């Protein structure tokens, strides 16, 4: 395991930098947007009252002081009190987190479970009709706008075919369309990636050797091909999970799914800064942690990259 600790340290350092940058941007953007105090008070509130609330929220401090306090609070997991819900922002966001995780995980698992066999099959049956159709669909899935895919699914599968409800959260039937919408891009990417990774491996000498030895074709695929193609698949698949979080904002809005993406949009309209800060920060944290894990898995799977 030589070289693993510096590798780990470097990745951890990068992750921390990314988090710090994101929180700084959040701070700057939120402070640019003007004073939230008038939103909190009735329009006829006396000046003394306004000043008192400003003081309570720390808005009367100079900006650098506010920034330091902000960073200190973040480090303690204190994101301030929600202006809209009148309770700690973290508690609010936590209440919505489960729905997003449910949606994100379902979309991710669905994507991986569908896409890997498709990619494998496409590679084995290369340049057949099945391959062309599958890869054509994957291309559409990769470049179609998420929000319109959602609208199309609602129109065709929900309103016309009446198979699934149009919106909201409930039993598994509510989950199908949002998960398909959110997972479409990931599914398409994983299918294409699997296909190319498998094709790459199929040309390797050890596959030819295995065949020459008379190893059965299914065994060649299962043991030699998939195992060796797994490294890039695992890596990109993991990274895709992070990008899902961004897509969740749109998907949750289309399907009125009560997750943190929709909460973020709603809080932006309400100028509920603490909640926005908290969602953005938590999303960034999840994203960074996932990327870190993927990097580490890769570092374990393929020792060569630790050097680089």
């Amino acid at each position, binding site marked *: 395991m030589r070289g693993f600790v510096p590798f780990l340290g470097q990745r951890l350092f990068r992750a921390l930098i990314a988090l710090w940058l994101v929180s700084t941007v959040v701070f700057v953007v939120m402070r640019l947007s003007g004073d939230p105090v008038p939103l909190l008070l009735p329009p006829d509130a006396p000046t003394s009252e306004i000043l008192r609330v400003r003081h309570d929220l720390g808005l009367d401090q100079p900006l650098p002081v506010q920034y330091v306090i902000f960073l200190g609070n973040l480090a303690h997991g204190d994101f301030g009190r929600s202006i809209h819900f009148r309770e700690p922002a973290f508690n609010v966001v936590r209440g919505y987190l489960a729905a997003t995780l449910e949606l994100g995980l379902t979309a991710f698992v669905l994507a991986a479970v569908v896409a890997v066999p498709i990619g494998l099959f496409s590679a084995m049956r290369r340049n057949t009709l099945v391959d062309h159709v599958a890869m054509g669909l994957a291309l559409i899935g990769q470049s179609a706008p998420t929000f*319109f895919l959602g609208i199309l699914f609602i129109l065709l599968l929900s309103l016309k075919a009446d198979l699934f409800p149009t919106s909201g959260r409930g039993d598994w039937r509510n989950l199908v369309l949002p998960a398909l919408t959110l997972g479409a891009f990931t599914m398409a990417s994983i299918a*294409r990636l699997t296909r190319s990774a498998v094709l790459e491996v199929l040309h390797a000498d050890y596959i030819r050797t295995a065949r020459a030895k008379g190893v059965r074709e299914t065994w060649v695929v299962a043991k030699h091909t998939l195992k060796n193609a797994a490294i890039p698949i695992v890596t990109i698949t993991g990274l895709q999970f992070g990008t899902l979080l961004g897509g969740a904002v749109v998907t949750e809005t289309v399907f009125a799914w009560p997750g943190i993406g929709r909460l973020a949009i709603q809080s932006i309209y309400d100028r509920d800064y603490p909640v926005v800060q908290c*969602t953005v920060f938590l999303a960034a944290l999840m994203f960074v942690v996932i990327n870190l894990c993927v990097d580490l898995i890769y570092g374990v799977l393929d020792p060569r990259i630790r050097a680089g």
Partner: protein
Amino acid sequence: MASSIPASAPAEAVRLAAAPAARAPRRRRPWLVMLGVGFVALLVLVAVAAPVLAPEDPIRQSLRGRLSPPTWEGSDRRAHLLGTDHLGRDVLSRVIYGSRVSLVIGFSSVLVGGILGSAAGLMAGFGPRRMDAVIMTLADAQLAFPFILLAIGIIAVLGPSFPTLVVVIGLSGWVSYARILRAQVLVVRSREFVEAIHALGGSFARVVLRHVLPNVLSSIVVIATLELARAIVLEATLSFLGLGIQPPTPSWGGMVQDGREYLDSAWWISTSPGVVLMITSIVVSRTGDWLRDVLDPTLRGE
């Protein structure tokens, strides 16, 4: 949404992700590229000639002509080829005018992103090590985060004006340009002839213009094409969320949002702009992929 793969991702995996079919015999398909370019040219033409092509004023409302279906579905053969929306506005005219928003914002933000990214890449490549580290860390940090969240936050705060949209969407795509230019600068910088140019008093601009840019030009064209598709979709997504160009100016994303409430009764309001957007996105990004195969196979890493 474009895939964002952090720089920290192992190069091997990224390379494979970018390669649709590694080791496949590369077929040169310039006619497909021409088809894609032709489509974009057609779209530009439609956008420019919108006042001539559009059968009606895209923002003229008609309360009596609300929600009338497309010609082929309607019983009364009114002259609305794609029907009218909830305010009685002609959908076809709005789709035609909507191409203006998509293209103007798309091209401008690609330009902004390209300039910012190229400048950052040159600075990272030629500048001191520390500047290089800062710029590349910034790039990693940006890719390490779902940019749409940040874009939504910034636009919500600053207000959805045209310049804000262009800058935000442009900023979302600077990283690829920066990477490719930086890499090329690092290749060129260590060459002896560059040192010779310096020693002979040749200018920095000469090195950039003669020895860096020509080598990356085709890559930049490829990246810009892919970025154009992404920018158009991002603009539409922001418009869909109510954070794009504001009504009554027609934009494809905004129209899809308008039609959401009427999906059951008047499906054509959302579907018409959505399908056009989808086709645009697919054709432009495919063109980018084909351009890559034709112009610059090294981008896919073979």
